[in-house]
């Protein structure tokens, strides 16, 4: 049995059209992985930066997994939302990235995209807000159905993750 620690933080996000952002995040693994301690999903606070473009959350990620195999390596999924002054929430992007598999400190910049609707929907999105969302975000983990989507590029989410691996070398895994 090998163990993996993911200890880090979601630093913040930049490159989005508006600034008052929050992020919903989660870690998704295969069947052989088991969460020993820590929260594997959460939601950050809403941050409105006064100067500059980057919204900072510094949200901690501290999970401890044990696994019986290499398949289903953990993936991180992120949803960036925008909250306006009226309290309405609007989706600003989905992002997916793999958790690194080599021990050490990693700085990851995860790119995000959001689905595009028809031109009428885009027009109303410009004025009123809103816009299409994925009916169930789990469908896009594997990537099999992605080709049906039409999306546009949004900003980047910065993460700092420290990876500690234990007993992997006992089973002959080089990372």
């Amino acid at each position, binding site marked *: 049995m090998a163990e993996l620690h993911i200890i880090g933080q979601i630093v913040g996000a930049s*490159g989005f059209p508006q600034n008052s952002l929050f992020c919903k995040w989660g870690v998704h693994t295969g069947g*052989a992985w088991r969460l020993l301690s820590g929260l594997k999903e959460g939601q950050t606070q809403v941050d409105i930066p006064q100067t500059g473009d980057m919204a900072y959350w510094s949200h901690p990620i501290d999970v401890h997994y044990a696994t019986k195999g290499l398949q289903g390596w953990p993936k991180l999924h992120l949803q960036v939302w925008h909250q306006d002054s009226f309290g309405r929430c609007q989706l600003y992007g989905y992002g997916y990235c*793999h958790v*690194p598999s080599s021990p050490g400190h990693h700085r990851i910049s995860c790119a995000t*995209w959001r689905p*595009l609707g028809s031109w009428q929907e885009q027009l109303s999105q410009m004025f009123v807000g809103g816009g299409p969302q994925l009916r169930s975000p789990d469908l896009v983990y594997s990537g099999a159905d992605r*080709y049906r989507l039409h999306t546009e590029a*949004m900003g980047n989410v910065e993460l700092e993750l420290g990876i500690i691996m234990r007993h992997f*070398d006992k089973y002959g895994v080089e*990372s």
Partner: protein
Amino acid sequence: MADSWNTDTGEAVYRSRDAVKNLKIRVRIERVTSTAALSQHLQQHVLSQQDGGAIELETLTPQGQKGDNDEELVVGWQEKLFSQYEMELFQNESACQTPLDRQYLTEIRALNKAKGRRNHRIFTYTDHDRFTSCLPIQQLQYPTDLLTTTKSGPTFLAERMASVRNRRQERRTLDSSIPKSKIVIWEPTEEFVKNSHVVNNAMQTMHIMADLAPPGRLGQKENEYLLLTIKTDGSGTVIVKPDFNKGKEPYRIVTVGEKREVWCLNVENVCTAMQPEEKEREQNMYKDLYVRHKEYLNSLVGQDFEMPPLGILRYMMNGEIVSAKGFEYDNLYIHFFMELPNNWSSLPFQSHSGVTQTCRAKTLGKEHVAFFSYPFSFEAFYMSEKESEEPILQWPVIYFKVLSLDSWQRYRTEGYGYLLFPAMPGKHTITCHTWRPLQTGTVSSLRRFFIGGSPELEDPSYVRIPGTFKGERLSRFGFCTETTGSVTFNLHCLQQARAFVDATVMKKRRQKVLEQLGGFSQQGAVCTILEAFQRARKKMQDAREGLPRDLVNTTSHSHVES
């Protein structure tokens, strides 16, 4: 002769897992007078001379109240010892303002009825006393100011901190439970602001003081001097100011007043030490606890781990297509597939290709960038065979093409590229540049612009080395391309093989995969040698048996005969 004094009166921090009520300190103060100094000097002088002293030692002992020039006391944690001033103050009930004062009153009355208090000059202020909170301001002015100029008073923060009562914060929870409601306090009270804005460590304090008045005139507040301050927080930190000076020079206290006197102070830690059996028992308990926790974790998951069969390398790549930039048109998507060379295999249900979503690019600086964030995961197995056949290990390749499809359903190829799997495991960020085939002439560019449609490669592996290529020199002469943008991949690679287990067990340095897998061929070589030897031996045995029997018999017969 106490000529040398200890001037290091800084605080010392001790940490202990024991309960703080076991703390015991021995304090000793001694007045330094000229007769005492002289008698001490003479005593030493006399003792150093081996022959008997002419001066009798008895006459050299200082006269006067012998008991009033020094005192030694063992004080426990938060042990309340009364000063002469307090004894006189709490004689009548009108001086009592709080329940604590009334408790002191009853204690003093009990003490007076009994044999009296055991301390004379040394007394203590515990955490609950009303004198404790005003001491820090006094400390700032005695004995050394923080700054050399005496004009500047304490700063705003220092004043705030001194007036905050050091009380324990009971409301802090030990676990990290966050209250679900009322996370933000919109209207804080003055008390809350005072407690949150200053550094409030919730320490319990105890001051050991001494009344250093001239003999016979005890009981006045001006002659109280601070000897020792002990602070603890709830988690095992004990701060002692000044530090214990057993075996070192004593501290010096100078009284102010009409007659300046010098006292020396010695502080010693006399807590009972822990028995070695108890220490061992505690360590065993901790060890037990950790072992049990480890077993619990093991039982949750199990001991097994999936390993590839012997002699096979499993290559696992988790990656994502991050972005594409610098392409001519918008609404890009990427179609990719992996190719495995010889000796590589993969699981049957594994998909080897993928298509990303169509993404509209945005302008970032000077370039148009499209974000895909498309994660993929790929697993391949390499079977090592005899070394003579395979000169170089060939790694799998990802071939990809970038295409654009817009709302008018115009479909164009934007670029072709390839990515070779990295040989070393770890994290790799690779940017691949792409090109697209170009047909010279205006007709093709007009077609590309208006209708869509452009020349495509029939064999995508032409990007690297075509699959159908067998020869020595690859010539692409006459093939016209145009450089287009680039695609960025993030790859995390893992390699697993049973050979790696033995390598770490034997503590070999990290070698290249080929050499490690080549160990099999070395073992194979040894096996072949052994096999050859067995074959030769068997042949020899057969030959020996096939020899004509009479030859063997005659030799033995002749031997017997002769």
